[in-house]
């Protein structure tokens, strides 16, 4: 345990802070639709032009080639500045890009990485299926080799930001004879290819940001397979490792900012008794203090994960601890916000913000990318070495 905030890093921090202060978008990010996608891409473009895209990505593909520590400083300052989430750029920046850097061919990297950093393209994920959610290994969407192409048939679901996406990281069954996890391939799909149909799905919050995607004899060149044919499970675990490791840091730091917002709100709102401010209420103060401590610990767990990643190239199962804590904690924080607001917590739009929507939306962190139950299984089996049970 030691401080590594070197002078160089502090200077980098000041530089980042100054740039973000000047350039972070001040307009409200649209909640859905083409306007939202255009907003996210424009903001990415601005970052690229400012020289801030892909801080830890190799310089030859448009990144800065800086160590993870700089990436972390960037995330800290990004959150501090209240800059918008990467949104439509998330899968490209936090899944596809890092996966291509490690597993992609030279041609794949050349073709995609720079375009991602420039905000020219957006990506979506295609792992889950209607019959393969938590049991991802049982996915059935088939791809058959035909000459120098794969022919894809089947369906993917929970594909966030599918409408408008240019590419998809697609996990396909390429060997129907092989054992569950063996016969899969991780493939780059062009979302504009003939035979792809997108049907939007409305989430419980009322917002439509994900979809079911159907594939009817979709032809994908074999050169789009990443990490080798039938090696998709390993590649997918690399992808999810990034999400569970460093990919979510921005959101975790964001949660700390949300709790600080709640502290400020508790100083403005009336106490439930009507006498004094909400923060003078003992139970409210105690819960707020606990949330402050828990998000501080979440940030420290992120720092611990980053520390491990500084010593090993590919993230391990520890990232699941952070993701599990985040998934549970974000719901507690957002439910507390509604309780703090009292009757105002019932209104979707108030001067305090859109807290009911935020609460309903935050459930995705306990379900998407692996439910909290699957994460607990992974922690139990991979981190603690507990025996696998009879398949649930």
């Amino acid at each position, binding site marked *: 345990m030691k401080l590594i905030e070197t002078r160089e890093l502090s200077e980098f921090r000041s530089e980042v802070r100054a740039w973000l202060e000047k350039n972070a978008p001040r307009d409200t990010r649209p909640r859905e639709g083409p306007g939202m996608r255009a907003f996210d891409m424009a903001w990415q473009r601005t970052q690229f032009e400012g020289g801030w895209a892909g801080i830890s990505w190799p310089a030859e593909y448009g990144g800065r080639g800086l160590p993870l520590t700089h990436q972390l400083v960037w995330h800290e300052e990004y959150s501090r500045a209240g800059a918008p989430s990467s949104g439509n750029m998330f899968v490209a920046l936090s899944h596809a890009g890092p996966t291509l850097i490690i597993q992609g061919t030279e041609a794949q990297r050349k073709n995609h990485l720079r375009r991602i950093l420039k905000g020219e393209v957006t990506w979506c994920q295609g792992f889950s299926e209607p019959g393969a959610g938590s049991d991802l290994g049982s996915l059935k969407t088939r791809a058959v080799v035909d000459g120098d192409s794969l022919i894809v048939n089947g369906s993917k679901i929970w594909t966030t930001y599918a409408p408008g996406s240019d590419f998809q990281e697609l996990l396909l069954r390429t060997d129907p004879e092989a054992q569950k996890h063996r016969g899969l391939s991780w493939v780059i799909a062009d979302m504009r290819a003939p035979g792809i149909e997108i049907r939007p799905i409305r989430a419980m919050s009322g917002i439509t940001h994900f979809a079911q995607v159907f594939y009817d004899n979709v032809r994908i060149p074999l050169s789009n397979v990443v990490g080798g044919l039938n090696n998709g499970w390993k590649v997918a675990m690399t992808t999810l490792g990034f999400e569970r490791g460093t990919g979510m840091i921005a959101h975790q730091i964001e949660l700390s900012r949300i709790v600080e917002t709640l502290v400020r709100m508790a100083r403005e709102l009336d106490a439930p008794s009507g006498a004094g401010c909400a923060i003078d209420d003992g139970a409210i103060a105690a819960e707020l203090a606990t949330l402050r401590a828990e998000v501080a610990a979440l940030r420290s767990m992120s720092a611990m994960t980053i520390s491990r990643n500084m010593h090993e190239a590919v993230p391990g199962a520890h990232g699941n*601890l952070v993701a599990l804590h985040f998934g549970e904690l974000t719901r507690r924080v957002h439910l507390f916000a509604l309780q703090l607001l009292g009757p105002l917590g019932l209104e979707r739009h108030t001067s305090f913000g859109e807290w009911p929507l935020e609460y309903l939306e935050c459930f995705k962190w306990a379900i998407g990318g692996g439910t909290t139950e699957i994460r607990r299984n992974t922690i*139990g089996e991979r981190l603690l070495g507990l025996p696998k049970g009879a398949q649930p």
Partner: protein
Amino acid sequence: MIADLLPTEEQAAIRDSIAGLSAKIFPVARLHEPAAFGAGAETGAWQSLAELGLFGLGLAEDDGGVGYSIAEEVTAARELGRFLVSPLVLATMLAVHVARGEVQAALRNGTQCAAFANPLRPVDFVAGGLADVQLLDAQGAKFAVLWNDSQCALFSIADHGKIVEAIDETVTLTRATLDLSSPIAVVSGAALARRAGLLLAAYLAGIAEATLEMAVEYAKIRVQFGQPIGAFQAIKHYCADMALRAEAAVSQTFYATIDSVAQGDENLFEMACARLVAANAAVENGRYNVQIHGGMGFTYEADAHMFLKRALLVSAINSGARQEQARIIASAGPA
């Protein structure tokens, strides 16, 4: 702040030497023998601890110490928690930073020790007067250390007071009175409150880790319904939650430690978060460790209850969840 929270080479060496010594002379099973109660085993091995440099770890070399920082003391405290080493050791590690001259040298070289004084109500050093305190494992100690957010003081104790039966019977608890107007040494400010809080948080984090490991080991070997109970999701998920709490406790304690080194000020926010999170982790993991051990866990014969009791005791030393929450909410928040 950017920190590498993994142990440095030196910290790993400190961890290994404390753990190695503790496994040999402080195995948790010692606490089945009343002779080991009240720091019995520790006072017998006090010189070995002093020779390891434990009481001078964070003291400057000019003061005869090893010249490390709080980070190395925290590293050691975490291991002491894993073996339920007497709080007398932690208190002495703190007291050397209050004492001066001969007393400091005696504490450092292991000829004297200091015990925690746990006040029954908040103390006011300015107003002075008498303070009713509990002393922890003070039978062999000539000194007691007591602090609040504005001052840390060392007292000479002649009368150890009356023994009261403690929730953790392996620690000797006595009721005594300290005269606040006559400490033998004083350090003003919040720096030692922070140091004390970090040491206690690290000890509690160690308990959270040890109970996780015990529970996981048991879940791997205890067979019911034809398979190890750890294969059942109900048990596996308890263990995963224990791992999360232990990771939270260690990470936050280490982060707060580095924060205290980095920030010259006396901001107690990160330390208070560490104490709250680590106390919760130690007590909850202690509880789930008992639960996962089932009927055996409820017996006196098993080790599980010892960790739970020690977790409750140490999380209540000179603070508690309510006090830490109050401190956290009164603070300006994270930097």
